[in-house]
């Protein structure tokens, strides 16, 4: 295993553990916004699509890139907005 892979694997494992720790404290009341908010976070895949764009130079590649960018942008933009809409409805008694 290369040092790079080991470093990535370390980050991944610690990310999982932090995720378990933080998310297990979220109350059941908020599970739908949590899932939707987590969904928005994996919209970071848009960053990956952007990095991929730098390596692409064929017509088929451009087509793939357009579809990937469409998917990722829909995920990230829609995810955050819909989560915000839901959370804005959670009001206190006062």
């Amino acid at each position, binding site marked *: 295993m290369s040092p790079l892979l080991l470093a990535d694997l370390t980050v991944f494992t610690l990310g999982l553990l932090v995720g378990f720790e933080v998310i297990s404290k979220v109350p059941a009341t908020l599970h739908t916004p949590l899932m939707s908010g987590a969904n928005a976070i994996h919209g970071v895949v848009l960053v990956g699509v952007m*990095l991929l764009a730098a390596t692409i130079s064929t017509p088929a590649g451009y087509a793939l890139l357009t579809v990937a960018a469409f998917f990722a942008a829909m995920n990230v933009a829609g995810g955050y907005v819909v989560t915000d809409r839901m959370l804005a409805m959670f009001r206190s008694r006062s």
Partner: protein
Amino acid sequence: MSAFDTIVHLVYLACATAFVIGLHLMNAPATARRGNQVSAAGMGLAIVTTVVVLAEGGRINAYAAWALGLGTAGGAVAGLVAARRVRMTAMPQLVSLFNAVGGGAAALIALGEHPASTQAEVTGVLDVLIGALTFSGSLIASGKLAGRVPGRPIVVRYGRLISFGLAVVAAVMAVLVVGFDGGAPALWGAAAAALAAGVLLTLPIGGADMPVVISLLNACTGTAVAMAGFVLGSTPLIIAGALVGAAGAILTKLMADAMNRPIGAIIAGGYGTGDAVAVAAGSGSSSVREITADDAAIQLAYAGRVVIVPGYGLAAAQAQHEAVALAQALTERGVEVSYAIHPVAGRMPGHMNVLLAEANAPYEQLADLEESNPGFPRTDVALVIGANDVTNPAARRPGNPVSGMPILDVDRAKSVIVIKRSLGHGYAGIDNELYGDPRTAMLFADAKAGLGALLAGLSAYAK
């Protein structure tokens, strides 16, 4: 590492920190909205930074830049429109759709990238397999939730055999990619097998199991995004993917526990019809007591403490506004009202809370299973609206389909009123012993109509 690279790396680290803090703030309704905003700010920063990286490197060619720009703009508009328009009852299918496109994008990254090392080949294959599976699986799940695909379990002939065949194809393609430099054709082959498998695995899963399935698919997308991060050597993708993977895994476990069903059995499918079959009132159970809406209204009006137990029937009838109106009318009379919400009420984890919040129920009144159960013995009336199996006391005994399932202790309240269309069975397919309890009275009506009649009775007879 140049100074520029170092700064970029540190900024990405700050973005990942924002994701974690954002999720942390989600642990209370009062701070959750700010949490989502912190997370969104981190995302914005990550995207802007990546634009700077692309511009600085100067490696992206004009066509690629246009493809990226157009795709992003189109996707953002589509996402925003869907997010602004969606009704809260339709939330599960939209979340599922966003999950699908996220997984699809992750799979496309590995399909577009030429792997430079064995590490990139291995993670690339994993990315393609998981991402393509979640893409098609989430689309089917979304279609089922939206009613475009039948919610009942669809059993495909020789489904298991075909699934096994697809798994073999996927494994062969994976070996070709990693061991024999199979490259793009083998990767696309793996993607095709995973797409088909996603459809085949989701079709047989019934409506009742949807909360578990969409949690599981959410975890898969997280993992696929992390794998894309491995392929590209991009830390923010790895961290965000791991966080989402953890969130999905936790929710999957919570939902499966709340339904008392092993995850393996859920994936095998064939359980839950998507909608309870309406059986004529009076059949199924021997002696139940019926109550008129007016009598029920008076009983509620003169109670000290009422707990509302909303279930799938309330969500299906979209009666959340009527339920909250009734709760408000009772609160104004000085009755102490709260809602007892089972984890699987609704069609995705926590869905019932969102529906009630939309109808302006204050979140202090929304109580989960653990908070609610100790309160039932001092509750005068438990008002069960369209909930069935999750209130069945038979769960406390071994030897029946709901044994061991965590239930709401509705039968421990001093009296119970159940609004339900009929004595039809829930997903578990057995009689609910609660309905035969002498302290239980049945109000046979659709949730919306029944609550309307209760409200009318309340204003007419309980001035």
